[in-house]
């Protein structure tokens, strides 16, 4: 699935919070009906990561959040993603020291973001620094690796500038972007 980002083709906001942490818009589906979508930008839950925000979107769940486990058939996926990223761009312009993170724990979502970064490299490079995060395990000189008290490997996150030569199947664990 290919996504083409174009900030000249976005859906207008229905509801916009002045801190830009929340926005809703309507997206047509392939069956012709309109689907309300909610974008949320929330401070990362780990207080040790200041200035990192999570970005997510999906149909509102009626409780102030969005459903991120629903696969919708959008009429124009390009326009949906362009709307979400444009909102992220404006948020970062208001908060230039902040970083937006997207959890890649869901393979389908991670694949979509990975391909979106790759196929829009030139366009997005005007606006964002793209970052991919891998987990790594420290291996000692004796061949053993760093473990916790239960003997499980200790994984640590390592960010790098998004590697556009990386295979589409070689997904990062976490995706981030910062204002350029």
């Amino acid at each position, binding site marked *: 699935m290919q996504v083409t980002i174009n*900030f000249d083709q976005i859906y207008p906001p229905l509801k*916009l919070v*002045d801190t830009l942490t929340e926005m809703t818009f309507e997206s047509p589906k392939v069956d012709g009906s309109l689907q309300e979508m909610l974008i949320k930008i929330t401070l990362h*839950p780990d207080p040790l990561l200041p200035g990192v925000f999570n970005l997510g979107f999906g149909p509102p769940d009626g*409780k*102030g959040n969005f459903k991120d486990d629903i696969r919708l058939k959008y009429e124009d996926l390009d326009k949906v993603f362009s709307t979400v990223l444009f909102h992220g761009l404006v948020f970062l312009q208001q908060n230039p020291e902040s970083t937006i993170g997207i959890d890649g724990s869901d393979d389908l979502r991670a694949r979509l973001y990975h391909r979106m970064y790759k196929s829009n490299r030139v366009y997005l490079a005007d606006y964002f620094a793209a970052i991919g995060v891998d987990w790594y395990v420290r291996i000692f000189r004796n061949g053993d690796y760093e473990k916790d008290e239960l003997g499980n490997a200790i994984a*640590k996150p390592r960010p790098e500038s998004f590697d556009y030569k990386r295979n589409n199947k070689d997904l990062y664990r976490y995706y981030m972007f910062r204002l350029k």
Partner: protein
Amino acid sequence: MNQQMQNKIEQYKKLATVQGSRVASKGKVINNDSLSQVIRSKKDADDFMAELEAVVKRAK
């Protein structure tokens, strides 16, 4: 970034200021994501943030 896009961004910001609600909806707080699961200590977090800043600086 071209001037036309910058104007579009400024219009959007103005819309948020003029018409934007001041209250975000209340939703459940997500306690962790995959990144928080691999940040085990303040040192892990400090190391990660320092590496992140270095990557961003190089990308600019």
